[in-house]
């Protein structure tokens, strides 16, 4: 039974072809390691419920097609490029957009 369960888990993992393999820590550049480490510390300070939510979103993100992940990264680059006024206006529009959904 346990062997069957293990095979099922393996099959499920293989059945998600778009799930990206994790890069090992040592393969990250120093800048990537620094960024991941800082975000990890902030993650640790979050309430557990919020951590679980981010974990779920991570699973969703991993299962997206590569083009979709790239699209989100490009959108994030644009978002980061907004000046403070544009950022606030965007957030206000987001709240308005959510209300209309």
């Amino acid at each position, binding site marked *: 039974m346990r062997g069957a369960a293990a095979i099922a888990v393996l099959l499920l993992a293989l059945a998600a072809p778009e799930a*990206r393999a*994790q*890069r*090992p*820590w040592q393969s*990250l550049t120093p800048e*990537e*390691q*620094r*960024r*991941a*480490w*800082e*975000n*990890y*510390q*902030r*993650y640790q*300070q979050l309430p557990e419920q919020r951590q679980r939510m*981010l*974990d779920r*979103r*991570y699973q*969703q*993100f*991993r299962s997206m097609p590569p083009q979709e992940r790239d699209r*989100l*990264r490009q*959108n*994030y680059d*644009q*978002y980061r490029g907004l000046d403070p006024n544009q950022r606030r*206006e*965007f957030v*206000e*529009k*987001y709240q*308005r*957009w959510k209300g*209309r959904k």
Partner: protein
Amino acid sequence: MRCQRAQQWMAAAVDGELSPRRRRALDGHLASCAACHGELAATERMLTALEALSMEAPVSASLEQATLRRVRLAAADEAERVPASRWRAWLPLPVFALATAAVLALAVGIVQRTGEVSLPAAPASRRAPKPTAEAAAARPKFAPPVATAPPPSEPPARLAEAPDLFMDLPILRNMDKLRHFEAIRTTTLDDEPATPDGQEPPSNG
């Protein structure tokens, strides 16, 4: 000039901010429109009354004490989370002594487990030197203080098993916004004028 345009310019006229050309145009309209002439006077009285409203309210000693109490609790909370915090000065002595004892006990525990000395950095003195402008400016905006030590060569297990999660954390945090980025950007805000700045705002009745 129509009355609607004249009314839009009245506040600026009262403030003396109209350009000479616009002021002449407004004066020309007021000379022949009694209603707008009265409206300008009412605008002036109202803006004067607004600016005469008091800017300040008396703050009670209890409000001040309650605020300081909350801030000191926040400082103590920070000091527990970030041992190299500079907020020693904020803590009442007994609380600081307890916090120090707790940190030392933890350090002793670490030494006993690992055999290595790993005491936290000594807290800075009360009159710490001001941070350099470069250091202050280089801190990311909207980020709480985190320890600035470099990443460990052997990361914690959680970080090691999913480093991409933490690299992409900002994207995950903003995922909904990023998935619908273009739709959100093209959303209109009702309070915004439909026309560019300086032109007539939409009529509201």
